[in-house]
């Protein structure tokens, strides 16, 4: 039992690590309490805290890089958390390559989105509150990735869920926003329910919740226990990372302000599930394939399913939401084939380009008074070039066109699936690539290309400075983000190896063939979209194209009725049952017994009081009855001897 509380295992010296979490948290608390007085400066304050946290994260990152490879992991004990008897947990931070990569993504993208929000939320009456929530989210997310034990991770896990709830429902006046917020929290709670039980199983089997000890002892677990624990944890991940069957909250979550969608529902929070699975990869490995197969299949299925729905959606934010679900599916696919580092790689690049896409969509909405329907848009690249070109970078990145960031990571995932021998998953992945290219091109082409079209009464203008400041760096990263995993350099994969192990990669010509296929498919998707949306005669072609698949298109347009099915199958019977309990069982049943007893006694007394006739002779007769009874008894006793 090494790694007792307080002791720092052999490792590098962390630099002000608590500040990474503490700064945004302090910012949030200050803004929550004094937000009204701080007013306009709230945005600056929030950006400052997260920016400084980013700097602190960077310092630690540099310190880590400076350390020799075997000591690139360290824990820092802050104070005791819930500890009773044998169960001991602390607020401990774990700094290792994986957590610091996540810290860099969260603080980096987070800072950009904070800056973007200054412009985007400008003029909102609850401006300080928004930044308070955003800061609070950042601190919980950082807690999640830095947590040294599962319990603390869970604290962050639920904390980001809370912030997601608060931010989705930020415009709570809109009933749809309030409902979406609640839905997000509840669906997540269902996942968390499984996650919590998974935590119990792990503690029951291992006797500790520390990440290090769990991963160390995971190999010794029986396959059954490991599978149970892994699947329960994964069930938690399906909630947070919006996988089948718990993905339904994410499209609705687009009711929140767009920076929120970018930060929480694209770049960071939803990837927490991926991070968690990667973190506990030994547990998943220990199940002997079952758990990982489930992860991979669910991931691939989600990727395909969400992509199908994205193809028919008209709301630009919702398209991006489905695309996020789909991309998360890719990441789980990668996890499922054991390519953990590649999953994290895709997580990072996805954070870049999806953050960018959302921010771009936000800029479009900002320019068009909040309109999100792509049928009313067109040719916007000319009036808003910064947005247009950065969006284009994001589009090419997600479709997987070489050399944009998405190409490298997506290609690596597909390659890993192939090498693992999982050709079905590979096939699904490739087909999804086609769909991805198609729906993203459909989005991009309809909004930014072609003749200029704006909704009535709006006038498109380019993004203001603060928003542009965020868009440009993300655009650059979307173009060049793939460089962090370019073969030959200090690659991300290699960097993460001490934590999550090696990912399989194809050798020789196979690598190029696989990449080529992926690229060709992506380009085919783009061409398809172009041919039925942009090129001359698109309308007619589109009609011809859609007709054979009418049921499918129709189904996708209605989100395959999943919400309705959940409503009918789970929500409605649940509510009926609750009503039955409340009105029938509780009121008539249990309380009925109680009140019934009282009524029975009352009625009996009502009846019995008629004995009280008031006639003294009746009483006398009764009295005599008693006398005779007692007397007879005595006589009988005498007679009987």
């Amino acid at each position: 039992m090494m790694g007792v509380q307080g002791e720092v295992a052999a490792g590098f010296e962390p630099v002000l690590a608590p500040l990474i979490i503490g700064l945004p948290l302090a910012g949030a608390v200050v803004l929550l309490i004094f937000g009204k007085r701080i007013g306009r400066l709230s945005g600056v304050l929030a950006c400052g805290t997260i920016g400084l946290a980013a700097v602190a994260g960077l310092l630690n990152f540099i310190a880590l890089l400076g350390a020799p490879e075997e000591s690139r992991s360290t824990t820092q004990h802050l104070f005791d958390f819930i500890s009773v008897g044998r169960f001991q947990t602390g607020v401990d931070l774990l700094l290792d390559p994986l957590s610091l990569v996540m810290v860099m993504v969260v603080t980096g993208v987070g800072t950009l989105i904070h800056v973007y929000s200054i412009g985007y939320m400008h003029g909102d009456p609850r401006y300080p509150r928004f930044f308070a929530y955003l800061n609070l989210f950042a601190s919980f997310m950082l807690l999640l990735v830095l947590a040294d034990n599962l319990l603390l991770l869970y604290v962050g896990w639920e904390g980001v869920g809370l912030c997601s709830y608060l931010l989705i429902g930020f415009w709570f006046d809109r009933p749809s926003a309030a409902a979406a917020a609640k839905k997000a929290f509840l669906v997540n709670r269902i996942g968390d329910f499984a996650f919590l039980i998974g935590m119990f199983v792990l503690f029951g089997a291992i006797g500790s919740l520390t990440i290090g000890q769990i991963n160390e002892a995971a190999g010794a677990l029986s396959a059954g226990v490991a599978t149970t624990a892994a699947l329960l944890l994964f069930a938690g991940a399906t909630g947070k990372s919006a996988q089948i069957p718990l993905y339904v909250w994410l499209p609705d979550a687009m009711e929140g302000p767009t920076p929120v969608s970018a930060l929480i529902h694209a770049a960071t929070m939803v990837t927490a599930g991926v991070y968690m699975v990667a973190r506990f990869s030994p547990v998943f490995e220990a199940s002997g394939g079952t758990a990982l197969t489930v992860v991979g299949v669910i991931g691939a299925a989600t990727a395909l399913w969400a992509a199908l729905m994205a193809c028919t959606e008209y709301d630009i934010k919702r398209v991006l939401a489905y695309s996020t679900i789909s991309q998360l599916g890719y990441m789980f696919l990668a996890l499922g084939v054991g390519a953990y580092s590649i999953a994290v790689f895709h997580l990072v690049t996805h954070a870049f380009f999806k953050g960018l896409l959302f921010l771009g969509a936000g800029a479009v909405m900002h320019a068009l008074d909040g309109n999100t329907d792509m049928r009313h848009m067109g040719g916007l690249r000319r009036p808003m070039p910064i947005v247009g070109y950065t969006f284009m970078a994001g589009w090419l990145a997600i479709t997987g066109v070489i050399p944009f960031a998405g190409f490298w990571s997506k290609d690596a995932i597909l390659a890993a699936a192939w090498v693992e021998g999982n050709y079905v998953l590979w096939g699904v992945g490739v087909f999804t690539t086609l769909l991805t290219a198609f729906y993203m091109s459909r989005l991009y082409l309809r909004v930014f290309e072609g003749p200029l079209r704006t909704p009535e009464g709006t006038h498109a203008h380019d993004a203001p400075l603060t928003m542009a400041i965020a868009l440009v760096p993300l655009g650059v990263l979307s173009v060049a983000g793939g460089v962090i995993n370019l073969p030959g350099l200090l690659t991300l994969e290699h960097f993460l190896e001490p934590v999550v192990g090696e990912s399989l990669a194809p050798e020789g010509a196979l690598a190029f063939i696989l990449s080529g296929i992926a690229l060709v498919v992506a380009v085919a998707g783009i061409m398809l979209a172009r041919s039925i949306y942009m090129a001359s005669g698109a309308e007619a072609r589109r009609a011809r194209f859609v007709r054979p698949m009418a049921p499918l298109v129709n189904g996708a347009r209605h989100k395959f009725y999943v919400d309705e099915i959940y409503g009918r199958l789970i929500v409605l019977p649940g509510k009926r049952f609750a009503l039955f309990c409340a009105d029938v069982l509780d009121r008539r049943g249990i309380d009925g017994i109680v009140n019934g007893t009282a009524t029975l006694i009352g009625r009996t007394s009502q009846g019995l009081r008629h004995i009280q006739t008031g006639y003294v002779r009746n009483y006398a007769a009764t009295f005599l009855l008693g006398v005779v009874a007692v007397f007879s008894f005595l006589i009988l006793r005498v007679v009987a001897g």
Partner: protein
Amino acid sequence: MTEVAPGYYLALAGLMFSIGVIGALVRRNAIVIFMFIELMLNAVNLMFVTFSRIRGSVDGQILVFFVLVVAAAEAVVGLAIILVIVRRRSSANVDDVSLLRW
């Protein structure tokens, strides 16, 4: 003079007592009911006297005095109550006095 066995006296007393009981239950005139109660007391007196004889001491006869006194006091108070009732309701029927009921 004393050949008759005491049991017969007791039997007589018992029969009179029972008649007194029946009368007290059956009659409705309050004064008549009182008379039957007196009859019961008399029967009891006879028993006391008989017991006095069986035991060969006068203690039983003493008790007759006490019964007598109680009977007198009871008769006096009871009759006074009846008097008041009759003044108010001009009836000595006990069935008329049945207010204290459900």
